């Protein structure tokens, strides 16, 4: 995992703090599967006329930015907040493990932040089995986060089974979007 640091000037940090950005916590639901986005500043603008760079690292900040801003920024490494699964599977695809590690780091750095892990399935098969399957998916995420040090008290698992689809079609494209765990941050 490449460590991306966002360098911001003190002035802009203050500006953001003053703006008190509202925090839309839930991710846009019509999203297609998003690849982990590369984040940060390109090498050329890293030192664009900025003499001083302050990077706060304490609680309330993530990678130098206030957490509201880190959570709200669609370019942030935290923006991938939906993880997808195969049919009748509760295993997180290996390619997504790195994106989840970012959330573990975020939660470890901010022990007062909690996250709801909301498990979902596609519409196929039995509703009650799917309710259990959605829980297994959310528990997979919970287990992986906890293996990376996230406290149990920071996480809450909820399953909605197939009752809350984000895509309404009756075909694989829609099913793939519905087989998911959503990370919902709240309570700050």
């Amino acid at each position, binding site marked *: 995992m490449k460590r991306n640091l966002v360098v911001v000037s003190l002035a802009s940090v203050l500006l953001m703090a003053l703006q008190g950005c509202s925090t839309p916590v839930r991710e846009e639901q019509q999203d297609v599967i998003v690849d982990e986005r590369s984040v940060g500043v390109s090498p050329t603008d890293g030192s664009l006329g900025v003499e001083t760079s302050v990077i706060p690292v304490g609680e309330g900040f993530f990678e130098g930015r206030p957490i509201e801003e880190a959570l709200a920024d669609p370019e942030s490494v935290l923006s991938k907040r939906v993880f997808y699964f195969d049919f009748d599977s509760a295993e997180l695809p290996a390619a997504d493990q790195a994106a989840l590690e970012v959330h573990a780091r975020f939660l470890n750095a901010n022990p007062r932040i909690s996250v709801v892990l909301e498990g979902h399935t596609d*519409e196929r*098969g*039995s*509703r*009650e*089995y799917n*309710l*259990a399957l959605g829980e297994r998916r959310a528990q997979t995420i919970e287990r992986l986060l906890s293996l990376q040090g996230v406290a149990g008290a920071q996480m809450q698992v909820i399953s909605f089974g197939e*009752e809350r689809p984000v895509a309404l079609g*009756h075909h694989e494209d829609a099913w793939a979007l519905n087989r998911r765990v959503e990370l919902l941050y709240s309570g700050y």
Partner: protein
Amino acid sequence: MMKQTTFLWVLLAGLLMIALPAQARLVIEISGGVEGAMPIAIVPFASERVYDDRISTIIHANLARSGRFAPLAQDRLPAAPTQADQLDFARWRALGMDHLVIGRMQPQAGGQVLVQFQLFDVLRGVQLAGYSLAVPPNRLRKLAHQISDIVYEKLTGEKGAFDTLVSYVVVEQVNDARMFRLAVADADGHNEQVILSSREPLMSPSWAPDGRRLAYVSFEEGRSQIFMQNVATGQREKLAGFSGINSAPAWSPDGRSLAMTLSRDGHPEIYIMDMASRQLSRITNSRSIDTEASWAPDGQSLVFTSNRGGRPQLYQQALQGNRPHGPPRRLSFEGNYNARGRFSPDGRQLAMVHGEGNRFRIALLDLESRQLRLLTDAGMEESPSFAPNGSMIIYASERHNRGVLEAVSADGRAHQRLGASRGDVREPAWSPFIGP
């Protein structure tokens, strides 16, 4: 030719029902005819037109829906007798009728209606049944179902299930929100009554054997919890709200226990709650998914869905009291997805959701011969529920991107659809027999 026209009339009768000014939001369409159905004539009852619910039309539709009868279309009746002394059996024999129902209605003092009906064997020219009953006008529809039950039982030897109820969930998009409604209707889809409305999901209605209470799953507090509700009074109570999922309620046949799925110990496991003490006993113990238990009619075992073998399959767990007795036994072997098992009322067969690739269909497993038979063909079917007499299975399906309820006779030959005028309809639960 004869068969074709009969079938057409049955279809037309179905269309006429749709045109009737019913407040109900479920409408029956008969989507398949059946060979070998018994020919019967149901003559309009004297004075029945005075009332909103035409008794002979309701009996006609019920019998046609069962797939066991081929009622003669009412405008092809050669005569309209309403008294036994007006009967000319030869005329009915000439039309190929085996049986005949006639009747009459009379207003009584106090607002009641006296309904008399008689069932005749046309070939032998004898009366098989005759009843005289007084009911208030708003009970005429129920009475028509009860008469249908009497005719059905006299002629098939099996108890009728027309005077029963169906519960189901309707989901509608209202502006930006989805509304979930738990509804109860007559088994023919009429008299729909919404008994619970919520912005959060509602699931898994399960009838108590007294036919008066429903257990179900509601997400009204943000996660799945089990509630019980008296249908008539609306009185309700939370039965299970532990951490994790609380779901899949299933009443024991004696009504003293409720099986359910709880994941409070980390994994979804089957528990049985004693309804008197509310004590829980844990039935399954595995690291896999164990859920959606259903009782055998003798109350001595449960069938449940488990993926302990990798994929969801059906297992049977013997019980002693409310405790597990011996290890569970796998029941389903064909295909890689079998879930939501439901015993037939005689305990000999198991209805289930059978998945093959992307197709999920209703199948029936004969527990003795181990033969699996597919009953449906569309590929998006789920939630099978037996009629209390075992004659039909109601289930949820998908037509034109909408959730609908359908029913199929247990022999797989007669199909019918209960279409909603709006919304998605799902999770039907057929009630037990209901007392008078």
